[in-house]
């Protein structure tokens, strides 16, 4: 077989890589759900995931319309709905009022459906009221009630329901629809238009494109209306968060790249190696991203941060390769050999620590760990394979001065002395803050995971304020494998709620029990109602004779008509009208074979915890965002502490074996403890809080920052405890590595997602502290102690 020419091999390799990268990048998608960052085994996370997965309406955008005049707001909302509905390519429907306003018979269908699932006693009593012998007295009673009642609501319902179809059914749903039905605030100044997309929104790119088109159409329309508009709902959240994730991935990676380039320039003052280094980093980034696209389903907001972290870490290998080339390598194989052992060691330990994160119960952190581990391995390979070749050639043709000017400045005795003094003063000050002001406050609420700026969040907050204040409300979700199982669990949930209400834990509650169908009762009641459904004209005559108008019979006719159309064999029967589907969409789900019913519980403030203990059993979840924060606070610190301790213990164990010195281990532990205390002090001083992601940041700090303390300890051993010599040897390496990692994490500190920003800020601050203490304090402290207590070995 003839040998393939090198140029062809290269072309095939490049083409293969290009295909790999393009394929991987095209597969990347984002999971904007903050619950995707949290452990699924937690009950609140599991329950809230069910709520979001089944009741969040992924194709429905909510447009809020607000002005200082109720009539203007109403006219504007209707006009906007018409404008949106006139674009069938964009909107399947746009509603400024309940579908029942234009089609009241839809409510009749819902009522017909509800009544069919009533117990036989209740249903038979209704049929009895309409039996020929009783029709007249039933209508007479209705008239008397209309005459006597003081309640406009009762009058309104009875006037349209003289036979009492709604008697015994909870009227909250009906009253809710009359009272704006989720479309208008009580004063009418705030209204909502619900827009359903013409096409299913398959991914975040679809969401961004569709929401942008709707916003643009609404902005054009608003030129002549001058009302305040807001956009929220699931597509708006996805568009907002994914859009910012997309931007942030590029921005944080770009700014990290710029800072890394600036650091390289300050140290070496060479343009061409800098350009090649940045090109290599870009290649690593593309390869790692493509690998992520191939390997992982969806990137969470936290894994987006991996790009900046990976750039910060993999560029270290580039610095090391270039520095080694500058300090004399006989040949390219010699350079690679010299670098391989060091890079392989650091790369594998870093990758190992980050891979250990994949065991974290926090999916976002676990994903980040896998991505960074992959990224540093790719980084090491690219730097040794591509950058080493260029670095060797460049340095051979244009040798660098030795020592470099920056190296000379960094290792001057004067600078090291002052740096030690400043670090010591800074350390004492930060520890004092910690001692006297106490540790930073703790915040595990879901707010710490939301985007910093988001129009969708703002609009949702305004909606909660003006239309439906659901703050503090708990969601009830009931699941089951069959209609009977869901029904029995709904009754169990009702029982638990009633008991909690009797204890004073619940102010009010609403469950979907009344809307859940019973196929068996539907069959039985439909058979019983068959004769009545054929008796529509008799009943209409009776209504008119009693003094009512045609309108009083609309509801009854609609119900009876449905009973006539439905057959017992169709059970389980679900209503199909727009009005009924609209009301049911947030309360029950029966698509794709999954059966779920929802509910809302308003707890008495301060009784939430007691409620969570008493309401809930298999298939019954009572969940809320505030409770999620409490659960995280209760569960996560313990889990993370175990994990951090395990990794720390492993690092200490490895160090003990490698150095065989108890004193070195004590110094390492003391350095980490001091760094941690200073980090806590600095966080408190800056008004920061400790949350889920600052604790997670400690894991990353262990992965990236512990090396700063290990390197000086190794150098001290090599240099016979001479701190100045150890500092001279390591100053540039530690400064370069720390600066690039700090640049990577620091860029994340400006991320729009608060969790990602918290992670980035904590890591950048922690690395700065750790690098300063390890480089400037640890060596002189070691030397001073060694002088006072000389080692016996």
């Amino acid at each position, binding site marked *: 077989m003839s040998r393939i020419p090198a140029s062809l091999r290269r072309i095939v390799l490049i083409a293969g890589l290009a295909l790999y990268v393009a394929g991987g990048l095209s597969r990347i998608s984002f999971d904007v759900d903050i619950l995707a960052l949290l452990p699924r085994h937690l009950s609140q996370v599991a329950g809230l995931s069910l709520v979001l997965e089944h009741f969040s309406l992924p194709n429905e955008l909510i447009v809020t319309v607000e002005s200082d005049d109720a009539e203007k707001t109403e006219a504007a909302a209707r006009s906007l709905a018409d404008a949106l509905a006139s674009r069938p390519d964009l909107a399947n429907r746009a509603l400024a009022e309940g579908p029942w306003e234009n089609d009241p018979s839809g409510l009749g269908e819902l009522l017909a459906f509800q009544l069919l699932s009533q117990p036989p006693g209740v249903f038979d009593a209704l049929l009895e009221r309409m039996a020929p012998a009783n029709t007249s007295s039933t209508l007479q009673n209705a008239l008397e009630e209309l005459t*006597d009642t003081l309640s406009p609501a009762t009058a309104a319902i009875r006037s349209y329901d003289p036979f009492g179809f709604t008697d015994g059914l909870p009227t909250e749903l009906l009253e809710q629809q009359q009272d704006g039905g989720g479309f208008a605030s009580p*004063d*009418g100044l705030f209204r909502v238009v619900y827009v359903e997309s013409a096409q299913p929104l398959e991914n975040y790119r679809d969401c961004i494109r569709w929401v942008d088109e709707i916003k643009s159409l609404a902005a054009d329309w608003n030129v002549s209306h001058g009302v305040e508009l807001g956009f929220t709902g699931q597509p708006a959240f996805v568009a907002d968060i994914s859009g910012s994730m997309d931007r942030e991935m590029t921005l944080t990676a770009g700014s990290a790249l710029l800072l890394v380039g600036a650091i390289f320039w300050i140290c070496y003052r060479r343009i061409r190696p800098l350009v090649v280094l940045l090109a290599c980093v870009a290649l690593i980034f593309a390869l790692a991203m493509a690998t992520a696209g191939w390997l992982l389903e969806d990137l969470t907001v936290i894994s987006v941060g991996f790009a900046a972290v990976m750039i910060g870490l993999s560029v270290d290998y580039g610095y090391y390769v270039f520095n080694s080339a500058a300090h004399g390598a006989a040949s390219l194989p010699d350079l690679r050999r010299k670098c391989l052992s060091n890079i392989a060691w650091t790369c594998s330990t870093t990758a190992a620590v980050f891979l250990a994160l994949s065991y974290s119960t926090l999916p976002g952190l676990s994903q980040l760990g896998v991505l960074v581990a992959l990224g540093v391995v790719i980084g090491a390979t690219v730097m040794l394979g591509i950058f080493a070749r260029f670095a060797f050639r460049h340095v051979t043709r244009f040798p660098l001065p030795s020592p470099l000017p920056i190296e000379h400045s960094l290792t001057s005795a004067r600078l090291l002395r002052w740096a030690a003094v400043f670090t010591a003063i800074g350390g004492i000050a930060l520890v004092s803050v910690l001692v006297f002001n106490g540790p930073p406050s703790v915040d595990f609420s879901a707010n710490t995971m939301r985007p910093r700026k988001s129009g969708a969040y703002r609009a949702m907050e305004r909606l909660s304020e003006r239309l439906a204040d659901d703050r503090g409300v708990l969601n009830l979700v009931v699941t089951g494998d069959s209609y009977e199982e869901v029904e029995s669990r709904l009754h169990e949930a009702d029982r638990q709620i009633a008991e909690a209400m009797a204890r004073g834990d619940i102010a009010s509650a609403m469950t979907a029990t009344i809307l859940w169908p019973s196929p068996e009762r539907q069959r039985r009641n439909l058979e019983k109602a068959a004769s009545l459904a054929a008796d529509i004209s008799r009943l209409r005559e009776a209504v008119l004779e009693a003094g*009512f*108008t045609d309108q009083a019979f609309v509801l009854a006719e609609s119900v009876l008509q449905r009973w006539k159309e439905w057959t017992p064999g169709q059970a389980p029967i679900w209503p199909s009208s727009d009005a009924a589907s609209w009301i049911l969409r947030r309360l029950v789900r029966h698509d794709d074979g999954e059966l779920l019913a929802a509910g809302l519980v308003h707890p008495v403030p301060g009784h939430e915890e007691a409620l969570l203990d008493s309401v809930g059993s298999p298939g019954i979840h009572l969940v809320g965002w505030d409770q999620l924060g409490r659960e995280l606070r209760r569960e996560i610190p313990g889990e993370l502490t175990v994990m951090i301790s395990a990794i720390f213990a492993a690092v200490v164990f490895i160090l003990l074996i490698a150095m065989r010195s108890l004193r070195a281990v004590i110094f390492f532990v003391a350095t980490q403890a001091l760094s941690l205390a200073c980090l806590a002090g600095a966080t408190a001083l800056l008004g920061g809080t400790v949350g889920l992601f600052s604790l997670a940041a400690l894991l990353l700090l262990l992965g990236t920052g512990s090396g700063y303390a290990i390197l000086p300890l190794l150098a001290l051993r090599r240099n016979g405890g001479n701190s100045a010599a150890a500092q001279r040897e390591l100053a540039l390496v530690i400064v370069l590595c720390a600066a690039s990692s700090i640049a990577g994490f620091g860029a994340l500190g400006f991320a729009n997602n608060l969790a990602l920003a918290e992670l980035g800020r904590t890591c950048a601050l922690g690395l700065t502290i750790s690098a300063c203490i390890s480089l400037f304090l640890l060596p002189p402290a070691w030397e001073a102690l060694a002088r006072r207590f000389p080692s016996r070995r």
Partner: protein
Amino acid sequence: MIQRSLALLLLAATCTFAQETRVIDLSPIARWIERQSKIRTIEADMTQSRALKTLRSPAKAEGRFWFESPDRFRWQIGDPPRTIAIGDGETITVIDGRRRTATRTRVEDLKNDASLRGMAEFPFAPDFATFRERFEVRDLRIDGTVCRVEMLPRDPAARKMLTRIILTFDTESGHLLSFEAVTKDGSSLRNEFSNVKLDRKLDPSIFAPDLSGYDVQDSR
């Protein structure tokens, strides 16, 4: 011809403008409220008519009304009473005589029940300033001694439901003659008062009904 048309148009426009900007003299209302504030008790017969789109003719009921300053009232429909509403300033109890049930509601929880809230705030406002804060008077006409006031509440939530409220009273005696609320769906509720007696001593049991045998519930 064109000039004449233009002149007529201008005249019509001027008249419309004059009508829109007409300042309504509210002094009869101020005097009426002033007189109401001095009344200690009211006792009157009442006819309630409810007109609905679903009824061919309004549903009428006879009843009786009692008021004792500052905030006790009893509103009763039917004889023997079928529906009674009794208020003491803090709670309102609605009694259903046929079903033998009674529901007690605190006045502060009546946000969503304009009808009961209206009863609790009888006679509309404690003073004229508060009346002006609560209501916008759209029209006021006096025919003999009868003053007819057409008004709308300023509360946007109530405004959303109502087309108008019409109030008539006797300017000489100060008696409330009728009260009508017309809603946007075209329904209306009208109460006409007759045989009005002022400042007579009322039997305390009027405001303290015997609820034994009734199913009494507290509503939130």
